[in-house]
């Protein structure tokens, strides 16, 4: 917008290099091998995914690693259709919470593999409770987007 007063345009670019650490490294190495790793809390026995160093609820070390199912149930979704800096893909896309079979928390990822161009068509197909399955990228980089999206089974 045109302003009747002077403004200064400024931008802040700050490079960081953050350590993944042992747990994230192992989890993302798994992604590269088309495996989703979680782990089990020795106290509450919940299977948490992604794998992590400790159970936030029980505050004890998580040591038993498990490869979890690549299929699950859609818990919640949003058809996101606006642009914001750093978005994972061009809009529209569907952000989704998925309960992978055998786990006790929800896994945030994208829902895809269907025509997303028309929202009215999308909402005829996408329903909470539907079964989904991971679709892997051929070009994997030990990154969360090594899973391209979860598609309806």
């Amino acid at each position, binding site marked *: 917008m045109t302003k009747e007063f002077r403004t200064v345009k400024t931008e*802040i670019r700050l490079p960081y290099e953050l350590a993944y650490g042992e747990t994230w490294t192992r989890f993302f190495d798994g992604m590269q091998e088309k495996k989703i790793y979680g782990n089990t809390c020795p106290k509450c026995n919940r299977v948490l995914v992604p794998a992590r160093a400790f159970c936030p*609820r029980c505050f004890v070390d998580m040591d038993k690693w498990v490869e979890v199912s690549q299929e699950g149930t859609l818990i*919640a979704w*949003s058809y996101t*259709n606006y642009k914001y800096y750093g978005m994972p*893909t061009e809009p529209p896309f569907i*952000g989704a919470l998925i309960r992978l079979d055998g786990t006790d928390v*929800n896994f*945030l990822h994208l829902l895809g593999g269907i025509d997303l161009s028309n929202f009215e068509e999308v909402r005829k197909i996408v329903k909470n409770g539907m079964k989904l399955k991971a679709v892997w990228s051929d070009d994997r980089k030990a990154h*969360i987007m090594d899973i391209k999206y979860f598609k309806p089974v």
Partner: protein
Amino acid sequence: MAKRVAMIAVAQNAGTESKDNFYDQAYRVTKEVLDKAGMTRDDIQTIVSASSDVFHGGISCANSYYWETTGAFLKNASRQDGESLFALFYGAMRIMTGHYDTALVISLCKGSENPPLDTCTLMYSDPFYFRNVGLTETLAAALQMRLYMEKYRISEEQCAKVAVKNLRNALGNPYAHKKGRFTVEDVINSERIADPLTEMQCAPKSEGMVATILVSEEKAKKYTNKPVWIKGFGSSIDSYGIGDRELLNGQLRQAAKRAYKMAGIKNPLEDIDMAEVTEPYAFQELLWCEDLGFCRKGQGGKMIDSGMTEKNGEMPVNPSGGVLANNPYVSRGLQRAVEAFLQIRGEAGERQVEKKVKTALAHGVHGFAGQCHAVAILGR
């Protein structure tokens, strides 16, 4: 509470885009609140500010920049990063130690100058996982809304009614950024940015320097015959991981319980006269009202249908227009307390509710889908 603490004056600026420089705007609001309290800078012993580093302001260590404008240099001062209602708590706590009698609490945010809100909120996401999947405050809220609508059969219309009510209420608020008479259809047919959320169900990006002065009970009489007491406060924080959380069973219930206990609130619907809640997304007002005990779980839709939360209803919620009308991001929680103060004093002008307000509730929230909640009970 051991020692009582009173709010004696408040000041804020309008949420619309201004030509003011950040520094001058903060100075004017600080000056105004001092003038209203009948104080000079010398009368203030300690200062608690709230602001965001870099993201909602463009300056790092922003507090070192603004200490002059908030009257704080040569004094004791610190900054709360995040929800500003906490700054009110910390100011009160300093007085409760017995070492201070006066405190200035100020929150600073000039939203019009900042990047789009979700450019900032994407940066709350961790860079290993959530940020790469695009998790913003809006996406988190949209997921929460989907769960809420499906679990309790809350309709789109019921969610949209919150925006209709709040934007209409804002017509009486000279500080509000967005206001107007809209229909449920207008709200539902606005741009569908993150279904089920439409654009009018999401808060704007507003300006807001918001200030209040707190004094000890011993000194309150010296400055005012209308003190507003901080009767109780409470907060609670949920897990960070949005997949780990029960999004419809968050921590507001716990935060409210703590505040109610401190304030001696037994039945919130009877003991509280009005509420200002932080609802960056329309449906959240319904969900938060359930957690505050204004209606039973899952009954938020019926509550808005009944008109109970209208300005002249049994429990007016956001007569100021709330955050949907004015969203000075960091300052929004403290602004709720300022609005509650005005209602209790009967000084809320055209947005004053009809019923007599003896006790009011102010609520603040930050993090994804209400990760962290804060509740303050204020009263005569």
